């Protein structure tokens, strides 16, 4: 049906509906509609890569300044062929695993306590605000002084980076418990422990998971910047050395490795978040 035809006012007859008319509201979404986000997203990435490749192929600037996507891909493959990369990935992975894991445990505990006990929040608020408004990266020189250039300073900076978004979001989740739900629970004589477990905690889950997701970003920044400054091994250090030795494709391959890790972790947490939100009606 053309636009002109659709514009024409169709006579409305009571009872019998015109079978030729489109009934948009009840139409099943087409297959394309379902995959629209993926299709359009992929197309735009492919387009961007193509433009990048064309610009690089024009060779207005040398490979050192603007390597093409193909150069980066080759560098990426080469990284894995030599096998040295595994030590770097292992080191960075361990730093993130330990630092982020500790941040999750401590952040969750502190956030819940601060949300639940007002006085505890009053006591810790100044520190949380101080550290949250400071880029924790600036503490790296101090951590190097304390812990040397092994994994510990990176773990410390990852921990501090991820800790505060987790604390703040967890606390907000507890604080945002609906007053009406608390009243219902109290009216039925629920103990504080039951209110915490059955009302406050489940209600905070979306906030907590958002905190975890924000924490991932901070953790990745922490590991890369930490290794840029001083490290023996690690993906951040690989990026630093490649950059300083003019191996731009290799450097960008390292960047892609970090970015990919971040996207993967965020997607996993997003999936977990969706699982916990299955009670929310679908908007579309």
């Amino acid at each position: 049906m053309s636009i002109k035809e659709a514009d024409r006012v169709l006579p409305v007859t009571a009872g019998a509906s015109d079978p030729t008319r489109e009934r948009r509201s009840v139409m099943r979404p087409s297959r394309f509609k379902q995959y629209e986000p993926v299709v359009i997203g992929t197309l735009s990435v492919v387009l961007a890569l193509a433009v990048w490749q064309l610009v690089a192929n024009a060779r207005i600037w040398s490979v050192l300044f603007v390597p093409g996507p193909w150069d980066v891909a080759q560098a990426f493959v080469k990284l894995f062929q030599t096998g040295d990369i595994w030590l770097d990935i292992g080191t960075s992975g361990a730093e993130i695993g330990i630092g982020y894991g500790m941040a999750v445990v401590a952040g969750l505990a502190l956030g819940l306590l601060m949300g639940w006990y007002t006085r505890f929040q009053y006591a810790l608020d100044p520190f949380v605000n101080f550290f949250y408004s400071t880029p924790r990266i600036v503490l790296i020189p101090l951590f190097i002084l304390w812990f040397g250039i092994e994994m510990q300073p990176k773990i410390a900076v990852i921990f501090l980076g991820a800790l505060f978004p987790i604390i703040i979001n967890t606390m907000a989740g507890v604080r945002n418990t609906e007053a009406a739900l608390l009243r219902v629970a109290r009216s039925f004589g629920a103990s504080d422990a039951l209110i915490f477990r059955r009302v406050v905690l489940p209600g905070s889950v979306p906030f907590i998971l958002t905190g975890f997701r924000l924490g991932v970003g901070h953790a990745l920044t922490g590991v890369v910047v930490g290794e840029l400054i001083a490290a023996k091994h690690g993906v951040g250090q690989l990026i630093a050395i490649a950059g300083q030795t003019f191996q731009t494709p290799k450097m960008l391959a390292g960047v892609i490795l970090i970015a990919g890790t971040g996207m993967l972790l965020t997607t996993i947490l997003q999936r977990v978040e969706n699982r916990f939100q299955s009670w929310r009606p679908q908007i579309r």
Partner: protein
Amino acid sequence: MHDRSAKLAAKGVVIEYWLHRSHSLFTAVQGVDMEVRPGEFLAIVGPSGCGKTTFLNAVDGLIPIAGGSLTLDGRDITKPGPDRAMVFQQPGLLPWRTVLGNVIFGVEAQGSMSKSEAIARATQQIELVGLKGFEDAYPLELSGGMQQRVNLARALLTDPEMLLLDEPFAALDAQTREMMQLELLKIWSQTRKTALFITHDIKEAIYLADRVIVFTRRPGRVKEELEIKLSRPRDLRVKRDPQFLTYEDQIWESIQEELAVPAERLIAGIPAA
């Protein structure tokens, strides 16, 4: 001391609370004297802001009283207990729990029933309130009327001696409200629980209750009591009964008098008590 025949007895009940914003003491209820007889359905009506909901919260034990006495079966009410259950104006359902999970929440909070027993009984209760087939639905998937049915079922499952209802149908559309009133009457006639029902809807009060109490404007007191001598079971036709209309007029005028008071006092320059 107290009347043996009363289920709930209020004598000179005063309820005050502190307003943080204006740093002043606010008297919501000033000297309420009333009784609810066992098995009776009593409705309280009054102008909005007259303290009727506050009074009900005190009966539930959610807020303390500042003066007088408030007793259930002769015992002072100091905190919520399993002998009372509230049906709230806002359903207050846990959005992450299904209908079944929400219905058992009351007994779960009280710790009065094993989980398997609670689920078995909740299933019957859900059927009683007309939600059979919706056990696994989430609150956000339900209409306002259905959410209030869950709210009611949750209270009924605790098997209280007294049911407290705080304008449970106020937020519903007119048709759903009438249907819910009818359903409530049906359920109440099966259980015959003592019920204290708060509403600002005069018709609703007369339609449901054995007795209607009119509150004065704030600070609330009992202004008038009215026995509703309409035969049960009642259906919607009773709302056109001449006697029903007489009651309605009487209560309406009583409330109008209350609404008129502040204006006259303002004119006379007498500060509101």
